[in-house]
């Protein structure tokens, strides 16, 4: 798994890194609440050095989406 993706998701969701898996998602992970989502958006934007566009924010729903975004940075 991509280390950046795990680290960023774990920090935003207040989870241990080993608790983050490719199955981690907004729909299935209790810790992925609205505040965690907000922290996640900010962390990704900081990492990428730019604001996310509307499509990126609206489709940021799971591990793969975060990994795909960070893969662009």
């Amino acid at each position, binding site marked *: 798994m991509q280390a950046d993706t795990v680290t960023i998701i774990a920090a935003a969701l207040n989870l241990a890194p080993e608790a983050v898996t490719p199955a981690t998602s907004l729909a299935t992970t209790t810790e992925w*609440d609205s505040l965690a989502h*907000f922290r996640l958006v900010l962390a990704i934007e900081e990492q990428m050095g730019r604001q996310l566009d509307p499509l990126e*924010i609206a489709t940021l729903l799971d591990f793969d989406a975060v990994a795909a975004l960070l893969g662009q940075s």
Partner: protein
Amino acid sequence: MVLKLLQRKDPPDPFLCQPIVTDRFHLVNCNRKEAIKVTAPWRQDPEVLHNLMMAKTSYSAMQWIKTIKKPDGNSRFVHAIVSKEINGTIGAHRLTINKSGTVSLAIVIHARSWWGKDVFDEVRTGILDHFSQSDRVVRFYGRVLSRNVSSIYNYNKLGFRMIGYDRKAWLSPHTDEWHDTVHFEMLAEDWETKRQKQVVADAG
């Protein structure tokens, strides 16, 4: 002439006007006077007015009365969100139904002490459960600012589908900057299917 005008107005829908109760809240169907009262905290709240994409940065009482469209119990509804715990109003939910059966949704929790407590999820679920039972309702629709991350999270969490976005769709009177907006939808039949699956899953 007066009779014709009166006849043009659709009567309140008895089913849709029924009270809605969730675990923590009464969703009270408001008349116009009540709607103005429960939304009064919004008219000088910059954050609320911004997220509702309103045209002004603040509203006088008279301007607000003109701005709030009259709930009619047929195609326009305002529900006060009344907490059972504190017996007070913490926000309101507005919706309109057009002739094609699309319900446009908006919610404001103006009592900030309730933020982060899943109010959106509980209230919106109650609203969707109730309105999706009406034959007049086909589709639910919401539009939010692209930087309103909490609302986008909430629509996604409920299973709404993002159907598109508009670039520079709203000029903020607060900052004089353009903002993008995101559109979400959910068919009433999809909501009912989702809820039935939840009931089965909970029972299992």
